[in-house]
Every structure is written in C-alpha cells, then in structure tokens.
C-alpha cells in the first residue's frame, strides 16, 4: 500500500494523539480477553444444583390446525418431570413485542414452521428431546400463504387479520412529472441474524413463588414484563439476569423457549436449563423482512429527482413483532438521502406463514437502500452521467426535508461522504502473472479464469434513524457510584458487542478523571434502560451515564469549592488528582472522598417524536446517520461468481468516542452487508425452513470479506446527542449491499434487482 493510501485509510491521521483514557481513547473491552480465550461464561455455560433440561416441541408444518395434543406418552417416559402445553399457561396466552398477537404455545392453529407447541422438562437433555418428540400432535395440514402478495386476498391467518400496517405516504404534488422515468421491481431475501452462540437460558424458581431467568436478553425489562404476564405473577417476582450476550445484531428474543423455561421451573420447582440446537436457533428467532419493492423515479434532464413513487411490501411472517417499525423506516427512507420534492410511497407489512420477521439492524432502511440505489444507477445510465455525479446532484444536506415532512436538523454531510469515497484511489488492477497473488472470484482453489473476470465500481448512499421512532419513549437510567478511588456504573443497557460498556467506562473516566471504572452486570432490579438496538445506548444510556457522572463530580467537588471559595467549574480532575485552575490547590480524589461513597442516578430522555399520520407525515425521528460506500468487485462473467475486492467507507459519526471500537463496528456492519448482498438467504419453500445450519446458510468468511477501507469519518457533532456522537453499526449494513449490487451492475451490465445476487444474475449476456 502506498503512503498516500495509508494516510487516507487512517481516519485518525492529522488528529491529535489518542489519549490513554476517557473519550477518544481506543480503550479495549474489559471482557475481550475472556471472550477471546473462551473463558467468558455465556448462558450455555450456566449450571445449578439439581437442574432439569428443557426441550421444546416445534411445529413441522407452516400452517396447520391442531386437532389434538396427547402428552401422556411423553409424561410416562422415565426421567420426564413435566410436559406443558397451551393449557398450562396461567397468565396471558398471547405476547408480542409491540402487539400481543403471538401465543406462548400454539393452541388451535400453527402459523409457521418452528412454532412452539409444547415443552418438556427432564433430567437429561436427550430424555427431554425424546419426550418432546413423543408428544403426539394430530394436525390438519392447511395450505400455507407464503407469497406476501397473496396475503391481501387470503383467508385471515390470524384473528387480527393479515394486514399488520399500511402507510400511504403522500408528500408534494402527485401530478409532478419528470422528463425521464425509470422503473424497477426489486426483491430482498431473508437474512438471518445467525448468532454464533445459539440461544440458551436457565430458570431458577424462587422461594416467594417467583422465578429468576438467566438469559442473554437484549431488552431485559421488556422480557421480564412479558414473562410475568405469561406466568400470571407480578413483575417484581420475576427477575431477568442478563448473562453474557454472544453478539447480537438483532433481538436475541426467542420467547418460544424463554417463556416455557420459566413455566417449567415454576411447575417443577427445580432449576431448568435449555440450550438451543443450531436448527432451533434458526427456527426460533426473528429474521430480516423479505421485501418486494416497486419503484418509479421521475428525474429532469440534468438528473435531478422530481418525484419518487414506490410500493413496498414487507413479509412480516406469522406474527407482527416489530414489523410496523420496520415499515415506518422503509417508507420514511424510501427515497434515500436525496432531495425529493414529491414522493408517494405506499408501504404494507403483511402476515404470511413464513417464519416471523423482526428487528435485525438496519431493518426497513436496508431493503429500500438496495432499491433506490438501483434506481439511481438506472437514471445515471439513461442520462449517461457518472453514477457518483448523479448522486451528488441530488444529495441531501442539513435543512432539507424528508418525504415525511420532517426537516433534517442533524448534520447530514452526504455530499462530503460521497466525494470522499469517490476521490479515494482505486485498488490496483491485478496483473495476470504467476507471481501475483490474485484472489479470483470463486476463491483460491476455485475455477476462476482471469480472462473472464470483469471489474466493476459502484456506489451506495444509506441512512438510518438512531433511536426508536414515532413517539417511542426512549429513556435510560444510569447510576454512577464512586468509592475507594474506583467508579462503578450501574445501567441496564445490555452489552451486545456494540461496545456500550467500554463507552460507559470512557465517559466516566472523562468526567471524573478516575481510571478504574467498572460496569456492573445487568439485571431487572436496576432501573430500565430499554432495548439494545440501533446503537441507541450510545445516545440514551451514554447520556444518562454522563449526567450521573457529572452529578457525582459536583458532589465530590462542592465541599472543596466551598472551602476555597471558588466554583466547581474551576477545579479539574486528572489522574486521580484534583487541581484548581491556577494550580494553587491540589489534592487527590481519595482524600476528597474521605472514605465516603458518592452515588448519583440520572436519566436521559431525548427529544420526543410523533407518529406518522394517515398520509405518512410527521417528525418521527430524532437523529439520523449517513454513510457512503464505494464497492469494487470482480465478477467471473461466465460463472456469475462475485468477489468483493474492496469497500471504501465514509461515514457520518458525529464524534469519535473510541477509534478502535468504531473501526471494528463499521467493519462488522459492512461485512454483514456483504452477506446480504451475496450469500445470506434463509430459504423457506412452502414456509418450511430449508438447511437451518451454518453449512446451508453461508455467512461471510474472511475470504468473502473484502478489504474495508475507512476513508473518512466526518465528525460534525449533533448538538442534541450526548457528546455529539452517532451510533455507527447499523448504517454500513444498510449501505454496503446496495454498493455491491451497484458494482456488479457496472461489471456485468445486468440489472441486478434481487439480493442476494444469484450467479445467474451476474452472468454477462
């Protein structure tokens, strides 16, 4: 790599040297060593005296009526302690993340492959599985509705009907027309979050008739409330203790075993443990919404967008989950970070007998990004304009208006990001010599033939919202305690790999000047902090931690300030020492504490939002983040195999809190997007999940992952965000599939209107 590119690849170049502690330091995670060495205890490693093992019986059919359930054979098996079905749910029979529409156990109808029907507790995991298999369920198999387009006309699959949400967004003049019209039909496949650590949990009954759930929850308080409602006991008698979360890019919500686990513990009076197999993991958790998109863009002769018309259909699967939020994001960001004066977007989320879809980061925004960027490529091709130039002409900036009527008030450096990736040097073309290591499409031992390889360059511009939208009460509470020269943060924000605990330590280090900061494990005895998704904890929980730390700081400095007759603002804390602005006064934090414990608790509640109205208008979002990616791909145009050579990323991050962590978050997001673009698609013919394993479901490996160059990180602080920082994980996931598709389009001349890109769509014709 030349010196020029290495400077460009290092976003920290030209900045001040990194501090060792506090904001801006590349502090390592406190858990990274244990996780790397394999000693970190995850939920699957838990054990309790006298524990039983649970197994869940799941539906083999996508749609069937349950005629009868016979548990007697299972109960008679030696070692089996309890078998429970829908009849054994003492509390609410239905639950759900937003809408309670999902039964704990199916009673009369199963609506998707893998739906829970019964659960067993036994003294050995094999006995439990065999007993679950011995529950005799008589089904009357029904025709599954698997095509979301047919869901509108089909018989209702659920008492709530098949339409979960419809947003008809209308913005501007419907009669507006451009000189140029391009149309397209796009399909996005079903990505699975595929956490490497499969779901697991332990439930321990309490003497007071309650239960403790040790699970890798990403939203402990919501999981507690749902469990309590299901068990028919008050929430204070259910405690959710968050075990280490082995990485979550989605909700690690699999209520189909979390809820039965507690029921079995309450029924048997024994601790009950469950570990999901890989197959159960694929069947249990929510997937990304498969989406069908129809677009019509109107542009003038210079390529400026005049009007966008779109129809967006999300396949929500059998239950609503968070589909209405995904739909709001899809409709609101359907035009992308471009200035569009007139927009008419219809969005639907419908029920089918496919596996349920839910929160996977970048939901809604990712699917539309792939479609609107394909449309931008079509306009550029028709007008003969460079694709990057066309995008620049339409780029959104602060002060522009979204199709929802909301003004973009946060920094929106879209043109700057795009120019940065466009102007960064392209990777060298490989030389076809034996000495030159050229990784061809198809891999190192593949069939690649240099003469058949074409290179393509494409662009993607993406945007996401950062917090819950449409009036969600985004609030987090954090406590900071200082004692004995060390600080402890107590906040129920779950570390899912997004790096929140490290950021919390840095925030306290920065505010209090104390290096030794610990973050307490999370349970529901702490005040709620909300779900871990969209990187919202950087904003809300980071803000709460900062406020609490500042309150502790005031408590610590107030007596000293009073004694010396100066404001606390004139005192500084550094390396455990307190000094006045003029250096006259100097003492240590330990002395100032005098053995006292200082506690402070604070909340952060961002600016409220409002729901989208009946024409899709409203200030529904608080913060937004933007990203530009340039993809360079090599395509074997005879075989249709694609290798992504390089992805150059420029991202709007607000402020860099931890450079090393930020870089890994962006790389991880981009890589997840590579999976969406090329390989990840959970196939469900007739509603039945095929190949629920990591051989059949191809996650990107190191060889599939390109060089990821972060060419620019724009630090323009968002004044309403704590520290001005924006969460960084989701927007690269949204953008990289669109950029890769754009590059394959450039290499092959094919339309590439389906993700993941199938080889037959990347063969030149």
């Amino acid at each position, binding site marked *: 790599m030349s010196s020029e590119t290495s400077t460009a690849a290092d976003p920290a170049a030209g900045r001040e040297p990194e501090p060792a502690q506090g904001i801006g330091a590349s502090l390592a995670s406190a858990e990274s060593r244990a996780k790397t060495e394999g000693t970190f205890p995850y939920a699957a490693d838990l054990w309790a005296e006298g524990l039983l093992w649970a197994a869940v019986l799941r539906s083999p059919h996508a749609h069937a009526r349950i005629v009868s359930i016979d548990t007697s054979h299972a109960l008679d098996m030696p070692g089996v302690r309890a078998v429970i079905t829908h009849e054994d749910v003492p509390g609410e029979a239905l639950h759900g993340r937003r809408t309670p529409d999902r039964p704990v156990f199916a009673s009369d109808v199963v609506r998707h492959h893998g739906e829970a029907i019964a659960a067993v507790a036994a003294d050995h995991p094999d006995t439990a599985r065999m007993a679950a298999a011995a529950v005799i369920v008589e089904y009357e198999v029904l025709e599954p509705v698997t095509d979301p387009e047919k869901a509108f006309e089909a018989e209702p699959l659920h008492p709530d009907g098949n339409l979960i949400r419809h947003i008809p967004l209308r913005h501007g003049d419907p009669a507006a027309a451009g000189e140029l019209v391009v149309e397209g039909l796009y399909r996005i496949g079903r990505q699975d979050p595929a956490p490497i650590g499969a779901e697991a949990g332990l439930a321990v009954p309490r003497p007071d008739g309650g239960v403790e759930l040790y699970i890798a929850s990403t939203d402990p308080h919501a999981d507690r409330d749902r469990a309590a409602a299901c068990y028919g006991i008050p929430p204070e008698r259910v405690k959710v203790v968050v075990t280490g979360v082995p990485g979550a890019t989605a909700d690690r919500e699999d209520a189909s075993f979390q809820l039965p686990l507690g029921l079995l513990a309450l029924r048997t009076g024994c601790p009950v443990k469950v570990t999901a197999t890989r197959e159960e993991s694929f069947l249990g958790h929510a997937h990304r919404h498969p989406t069908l998109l129809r677009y019509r863009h109107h542009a003038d002769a210079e390529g400026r967008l005049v009007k966008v018309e779109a129809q967006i259909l999300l396949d929500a699967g059998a239950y609503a989950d968070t589909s209405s939020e995904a739909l709001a994001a899809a409709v609101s960001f359907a035009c992308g970070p471009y200035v569009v004066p007139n927009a008419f977007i219809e969005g639907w989320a419908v029920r089918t007998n496919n596996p349920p879809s839910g929160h996977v980061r970048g939901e809604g925004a990712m699917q539309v990004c792939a479609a609107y960027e394909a449309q931008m490529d079509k306009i550029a091709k028709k007008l003969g304009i460079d694709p990057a130039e066309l995008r620049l002409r339409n780029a959104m900036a602060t002060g522009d208006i979204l199709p929802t009527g909301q003004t973009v008030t946060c920094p929106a450096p879209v043109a700057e990001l795009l120019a940065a990736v466009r102007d960064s040097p392209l990777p060298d073309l490989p030389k076809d010599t034996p000495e030159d290591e050229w990784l061809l499409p*198809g*891999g190192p*031992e593949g*069939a690649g*033939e240099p003469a058949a390889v074409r290179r393509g360059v494409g662009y993607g511009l993406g945007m996401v919202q950062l917090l819950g939208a449409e009036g969600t009460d985004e609030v987090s509470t954090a406590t900071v305690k200082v004692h004995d020269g060390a600080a402890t943060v107590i906040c129920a924000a779950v570390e899912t790999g997004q790096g929140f605990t490290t950021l919390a330590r840095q925030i306290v280090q920065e505010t209090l000047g104390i290096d030794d900061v610990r973050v307490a494990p999370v349970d529901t005895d702490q005040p709620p902090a909300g779900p871990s998704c969209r990187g919202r904890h950087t904003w809300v929980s980071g803000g709460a931690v900062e406020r609490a730390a500042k309150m502790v700081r005031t408590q610590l400095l107030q007596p000293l300030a009073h004694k010396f007759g100066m404001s606390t603002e004139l005192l500084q804390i550094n390396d455990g020492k307190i000094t006045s602005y003029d250096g006259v006064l100097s003492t240590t934090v330990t002395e100032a504490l005098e053995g006292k414990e200082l506690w402070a608790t604070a909340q952060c509640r961002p600016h409220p939002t409002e729901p989208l109205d009946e024409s899709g208008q409203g200030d529904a979002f608080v913060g937004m983040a933007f990203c530009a990616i340039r993809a360079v791909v090599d395509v074997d145009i*005879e*075989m*249709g*195999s694609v290798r992504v050579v390089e992805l150059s990323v420029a991202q709007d991050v607000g402020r860099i809190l931890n450079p090393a962590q930020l870089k890994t978050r962006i790389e991880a997001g981009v890589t997840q997007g590579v999976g969406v673009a090329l390989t990840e698609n959970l196939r469900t013919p007739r509603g039945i999940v095929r190949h629920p394993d990591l051989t059949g479901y191809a996650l990107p490996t190191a060889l599939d992952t390109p060089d990821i160059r972060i060419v620019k990180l724009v630090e323009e602080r968002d004044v309403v965000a704590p520290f001005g920082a924006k969460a960084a994980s989701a927007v690269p996931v949204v953008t990289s599939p669109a950029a890769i598709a754009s590059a394959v389009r450039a290499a092959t001349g094919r339309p590439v209107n389906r993700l993941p890109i199938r*080889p037959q769509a990347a063969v030149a014709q």
Partner: protein
Amino acid sequence: MKLPATLDEAVAALTAMPAAVPVAGGTDLMASVNSGQLRPAALVGLGRISEIRGWQYQDGHALLGAGLTHARMGRPDFAALIPALAAAARAAGPPQIRNAGTLGGNIASAAPTGDALPVLAALEAVLIIAGPGGGRREIPVSHLLAGMEMLRPGELIGFVRVPLLHAPQVFLKATGRTGPGRATASVALVLDPARRGVRCAVGAIAPMPLRPLEAEEWVASLIDWDGGRGSLVPEAVTAFGEYVASACIPDQPPAADGAEQPLSPAVLHLRRTVAALARRALGRALS
C-alpha cells in the same frame, strides 16, 4: 469407543459389535450426531490405524490409505503424484475440516458434493475393502457410489488404488462464494497418454459423479497424442465443454403433445457453469 491399531482389528471390532459405527475424521458423522439425526450405540475410531494414513506404490499405481486427510493430500509431494486429487483436497473446505476429514470418509459419506469423488471417478479408482478374517476384495469406486455393490457388515474401506498417469490433471469447482463452500458443480479431468484417453467426471450435480463418455472419446480422438497436445483449436475446447454439459444436463424430453419443455433458468445456469468448468479444465490440461 474402540481405538484399534490395525485394519484387521478394526474389522474384528466392527464384526463383534454390528451396531458400532466406524469414525475417522468425523466431519460428517459428528455433525449428524450433534443435530440429533444419529445416536450410534458405539464407535470404532480409525484414527490410530497407521497403515491407512499414508500411501505406497504398486505396479504403476498408488495405494492410498483411506485415512489420508485432505490436508495431507493437499501437500506438494502428493500433488506431484495425483494433482487433481490434491486440488480437490485443497478445495474441500476450511482448514479445520481438511485437517480432520479423510479420503475414505469422503467415499463412505458419498455426499453428492464430496470433492474427491469426481476425481476418483475420472481416475477410475478401485477400492480395496477389508473384510472379516483378513479378507480383501476390490470394488471400482463408481460401483460403490452407484450402489451397484455395497459394503457388507463389518467391512471397511482400507485403500484406494489410483493409477499414476504422469500427465496433467485438473479439478475445478464452482461454489456460491469466495470462501470455502460446497460445490454447486465440479469437474475433474485427467489425461491418460498411455491409453490415449481423456477422462472427465462431473460432480455435485447428481447423486454421484457423472462421466460424459462420448464427449471423452470424441475429444481424445482430436488430440495429437504424439505431438504437442496443446494444438487443439479453441473451438474444439469450447465444443467439448458444451458436449459435457449437455450430456450431464440433458434437455427435457418433449411433452406428450410434442411441445418443447425448456429448462428452468437455474438449470440452464448450471449447464452453463458445467460447460465453462469443463472447457476451462480441458484448456488447462492441454496448456
């Protein structure tokens, strides 16, 4: 779990315990165990049988031990002997799989995507089966894969006899990704100058490797075996690819009313892929 030290001990252990399952690398077997599809009553481990972990020479043939790992077969010394098998072994998966998975296991699993299988089919390899009482019998690999002959209870694949052809051999594999993955189609092609033959097998598109015999004969008749083999015109190489592909993925027979039944786009793409693989394989073998 038994860990015999010789092939005959292993056969004896299997005969004594008919419910036992032999395990070598375990890359397929343990996946079935972990997913709950298989719960063997007992295992006979083949990992300590040193006689099947190497190879020896025998009348112009190599006698390959069934316990040879993919990693071992991928090394340069082995590649100098049987280049196509070495290439298949290197393509057989990520390093963890290649370190454990064995040649015999690949044959015994007989998965359609087994990478060694088209190479063994093209080489017309013969399996040497160890049976009870020190018995040995031979089965052509294609007979076992086609189910014409089966392993009897207590029998184990001991060795694989492969001819040493001293001529170019190619194995090419198409996968859906750049990283290691299962083949969507693969082609093994070997030249046999002594018998003036070209032998080709197509893997992963059918339950067993397919041999396009007519295409082999046709192209062998075009090659100038005594002069430079590279003199074949590019059109002939392309035609060979098409020939192989249409032999392995034939057109649909016309419907009852005589109407043509076109192949689905996915099948057409597979046929195009096989044609490209076969063309590239022949091109590389002759260059």
